[in-house]
């Protein structure tokens, strides 16, 4: 179980993403987001996308893809950034912990 905790300073939204990695693949992903509708939609879309994906793959997800899929207007682009940040943070945490473990 790995955590990614991120925030969007543009609006004060916070998001916690949990991923279950086994061994190099995201088996499951859950999120908890305190924020606006766009932030929740972005988080939700992100968890759908990362499930079953290889870590290296999931790491490549770009906020622009999320923004495009949800057709976010310019004022809400930061919500997709939040989601991208979350998966990056979670994977980063996982990888750095593994290094320590090894």
């Amino acid at each position: 179980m790995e955590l990614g905790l991120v925030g969007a300073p543009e609006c004060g939204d916070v998001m916690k993403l949990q991923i279950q990695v086994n061994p190099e693949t995201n088996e499951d992903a859950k999120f908890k987001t305190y924020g606006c509708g766009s932030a929740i939609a972005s988080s939700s879309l992100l968890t759908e996308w990362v499930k079953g994906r290889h870590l290296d793959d999931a790491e490549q997800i770009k906020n622009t893809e999320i923004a495009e899929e949800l057709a976010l207007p310019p004022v809400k682009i930061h919500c997709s950034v939040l989601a991208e940040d979350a998966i990056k943070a979670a994977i980063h945490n996982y990888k750095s912990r593994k290094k320590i473990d090894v």
Partner: protein
Amino acid sequence: MNNKMKRIIGIDLGTTNSLSATVFDEGPEVIGTDGDFSVTPSVLSWTGSGWLVGQEARERRITNPENTVYSIKRLMGRSLDELSETVQDLPYQIVEAQRQLVKVRIGESKPYKEFTPQELSAEILKKVKQRAEEALGESVEKAVITVPAYFDDAQRQATRDACRIAGLEVARFINEPTAAAIAYGLDEKRDLQKDGHVVVYDLGGGTFDISILKLSGKIFKVVATHGNTQLGGDDFDQVVVETLKDRIHQEHPEAEFDDPESKHILKKTAEFIKIKLSFSPETDYSLDFSKKSMSFSGVFKLEEFESLIAPMIEQTLESCRHVLREANLSVKKIDEVVLVGGSTVIPAVRKQIESFFGRPPHVAIDPYKVVAIGAGIQGHLLAGGRRDFLLLDVIPLALGIETLGGTFSKIITGNTTIPIEESETFTTNVDNQTSIDVNIFQGERELIKDCRALGQFKLRGIPPMKAGLPLVEVMFRVDANGILTVSAIEKRSGKKAEIEVIPFHGLTQFEIERIMEDSFEHAVDDFNERQLIEFRQTAERVFRGIEQCWDVAENDLSETSRDEIQKQMDVVRQSMKGQDSQALKTQLDVLGDLTRPLADNSMGRSILSELQDDANLNQ
């Protein structure tokens, strides 16, 4: 008023009653000639070829229920879905038309007559305009129209369309509580604190508004507003109606009340009970369903009424809490509380407000008139009659657009002072895309399903470019009337994108023009017919009045005078059978002259004024 300045009157277009006001040399006052009750009930009745409006229509609620329409304001700019609860209570038929628009259907079988709420509202406006013109002796072209503060853009647009159809130019829309604040704040006779925070609690026939204003040096600045456009005295009536039905069912389990006549009788009785209970701890009532040959009577207790309406009063207090929070003020910071709207006459409402705000509310200006008077004062300002005060109002609810996933992105936040402009940049998703669809919503919630769809904007004529390259700046402009307009420009090419507005719940320009042409064609025929019906009803009223004070006549008038009156009554009866409205009017005038001594007598006067006692508790 100087000659160059064209008068702009104020009109309070209410759910139950409508009236106009203006500034006379002596000061602001409701428009209406002496002895002529200046309120026009917001009721219409279809005669087969045209509408009767006001008092005459109101009298036909029982005799002609299926053709008599009231509470139209509740339908303005709404869709059938949103109205499902309201519709059940109304005795007339409402059907869905194009683009979620509703129409009122008249007639029991085909061919039906169908009318949009805008057309019906226009009929009321025409009547108010006509009465104002008669009283002022001059034509009226422009008006300040009041709307509930919590009316959204669709409801305002619908009201504006009604004005267009009625041939009235809207000089300005102002919010009802704000209008009331102006009337209070500028009343020289009143010792209202000149600077400070004023709460206006406005509970009318069909709408509730709460506004907090900051008064300082003749500037009336609305700080925050909240409300409910589907809550008012009508709902108080409805809970009483439900109780009455339950009681009747206990004696007559088979009884059904879905026919228009029963609905009208129940509604009228509920109104009667509500009014009586404002003055006494209990009241008798009786219902006479003549078509069913069933009657029913009983006693209604004040405590029962109060417990029935308590949840609705609590709803209004919830709005009070909300608006205080929006304004970032505590109850202690409120300097005055002003009550507006007929439903604030109810003692339970007053008690609750007093205990909530911890101070007795102001009620000195007639709560029925105060909104119209405020609008009249604002009209005077717009006409150039004075410029020593200023009203700064707000947009009640946020405006924004739909983003995929059904979320709502606010572009202009609620409670922003108007006029206001905000822009937002859009781009394309596909190469060479030349148009973008934007859905406009209004509301305070996160998801568009909880907000109101105002319309769809199609941005066309975007120069073909790679996806993401065009920068289409869309400008949202809310004018001082609280009405939204949208324009767009592609910034890279400087090309103006065309915007086509497809209003939901609203009329297109073409539809408005068609309605106006139609009504012009029928105008002449309708006019004679309408007058005939109006005069016939006036005659009936006069007859009733004479009958009621005949005792007085026997004491006060000579036998010859009494004979003359009797003879003239016969002449009028004959005229009533004819088709010549002017002849009937002439004979009625003669009768009026003959009975003048009766009307001048104090007893007679009180009876004649009884005739107008139908004036309602709601506004």
